């Protein structure tokens, strides 16, 4: 089940033959996959399989040793992180990374940075356009906080928010960059069942609003319920890809998760 080159042309996000070495360790070897416009695509695999490395390559933190990453028509590999965001890909983090000493509102406003212009001259003279832009940023940030359900905490420092709310705030901040593709690194980690259900509802809303989602997740139920397709990574290689129901019964996948005993 290898994605053919012609199928890749329709993909929003396409990785072709991506490899990344750390010293002697092949964190990713020859990984190709494609995420179609409008789908929720899951990336699963045992710990250390290379999922987060793949995220870091896609978001420009690492540059791949081989292979290319494309978002639509544009090449992402070789871009710096801030350029990747400008091109329409935003992410969240496995271990939450917020601007802890800024308010929730300001965190989201930082996300608007790439879609706004005001520079140092605007900051000094604060003309009408600058002020209008600033209030538009603030308005949009409030909207997004309400959208993810943390609107009541707008003025609290990010580090004072509850764990689940911090995760939602990260999503709001990522959405503030107007991404075509939202990459979520274990968004349900540490959440209880109720929070996970709310997250699932949120992600479905995000997708319905036209944002494609790439998801790393350990919560098997969430992946099965939410994802249209999943890819399984093991030791840096893609060992399976397809509909969740197919993949969960794939003997290769079962072996990777349970070891030789299966």
């Amino acid at each position, binding site marked *: 089940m290898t994605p053919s080159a012609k199928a890749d042309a329709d993909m929003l996000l396409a990785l072709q033959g991506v490899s990344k070495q750390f010293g002697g360790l092949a964190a990713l070897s020859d990984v190709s996959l494609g995420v179609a416009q409008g789908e929720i695509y899951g990336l699963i695999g045992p710990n250390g399989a290379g999922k987060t490395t793949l995220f870091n390559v896609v*978001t420009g*933190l690492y540059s791949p040793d081989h292979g290319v990453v494309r978002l639509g028509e544009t090449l992402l590999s070789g871009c*710096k*992180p*801030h350029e990747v*965001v*400008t091109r329409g890909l*935003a*992410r969240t983090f496995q271990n939450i*990374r*917020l*601007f*802890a*000493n*800024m308010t929730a509102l*300001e965190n989201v*406003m*930082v*996300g*608007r*940075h*790439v879609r*706004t212009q*005001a*520079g*140092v001259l*605007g*900051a*000094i003279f*604060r003309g009408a356009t*600058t002020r209008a*832009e*600033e209030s538009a*940023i603030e308005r949009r940030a409030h909207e997004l906080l309400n959208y993810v359900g943390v609107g009541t905490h707008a003025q609290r420092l*990010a*580090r004072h928010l509850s764990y689940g709310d911090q995760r939602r705030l990260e999503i709001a*901040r990522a959405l503030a*960059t107007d991404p075509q593709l939202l990459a979520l690194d274990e968004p349900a980690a540490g959440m209880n069942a109720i929070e996970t259900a709310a997250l699932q509802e949120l992600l479905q809303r995000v997708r319905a609003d036209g944002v494609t989602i790439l998801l790393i997740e350990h919560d098997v139920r969430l992946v099965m319920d939410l994802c249209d397709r999943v890819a399984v990574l093991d030791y840096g290689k893609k060992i399976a890809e397809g509909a969740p129901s197919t993949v969960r019964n794939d003997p290769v996948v079962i072996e990777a998760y349970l070891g030789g005993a299966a």
Partner: protein
Amino acid sequence: MDIFLQQLINGLVLGSIYALIALGYTMVYGILELINFAHGEVTMMGAMICIAVMGALLSAGGLPAIVVLALGLAAAISICMVLGYSIERVAYRPLRGAPRLAPLITAIGMSIVLQNTAMLIWGKQYLTFPKLFEPQRYEWAGAHVTSLQILIVVLAITLMGALLLLVHRTRLGRAMRATAQSPELAGLMGINPNTVISFTFIIGAALGAVAGVMVSAYYGLAHYYMGFLLGLKAFTAAVLGGIGNVAGAMLGGMLLGIIESLGAGYIGPLTGGFLGSHYQDVFAFFVLIVMLVFRPSGLLGERVGERA
């Protein structure tokens, strides 16, 4: 009591100047954790450029004093902004990611280069700040205040207020604060860290230039070596307030100026004339040592562990 009030006023003037320079240290440190030792020299350059430009304009003649001052100040600010940007580009950016000692050494190197450049251009003698206005003197409760002193304090406070607004209420300021908390994360949120760092150096240099002009106007002199001590004291002010903290630099600058002035004013009477006011500089460094020993994070500083 009148000596107290007098020294308080003098300290406030001095402190305003320290605060403006300290902001340049603290903003750069906040983002790069680098002590830009060349910043004192940027301040010196501001003073020298302003005097040189004003001198040229005065000898050409025909311009009203206020225009001469404005042009001199504008030249100092704009050339120092270019200087601030270039210093970062040439001396620090290539060493991003190098061990922290390396940029510290280039910072010292940069400061020597700037001192020597100034010496080659303007020579080793003192330049005198031209007398453009006859300063008004006011008496208030037994203390003297000049119009120049008032101007310095008002201008410094205005600039500091503007900077606080910029940092807390604008898109660029938000990007600066985000980058200060985590350059990598800011990049992942679409902020180009290099742009933010450049602006930080440019803004710091502009404030430094204004402070340099203030110092030379206040003492009537400028000299290629003046940036060294001025820079060290402003650095002390930044440490006193909590380096990396913008409001801390303002508070630290003001406090240091007042401590120095009061110290200089009282040391003579208190030691029965044994030590004179020329021991003024000792107080700044005494404060630096005390802070580093007892509260290295500064008055308003945060524990390093709080960086997200």
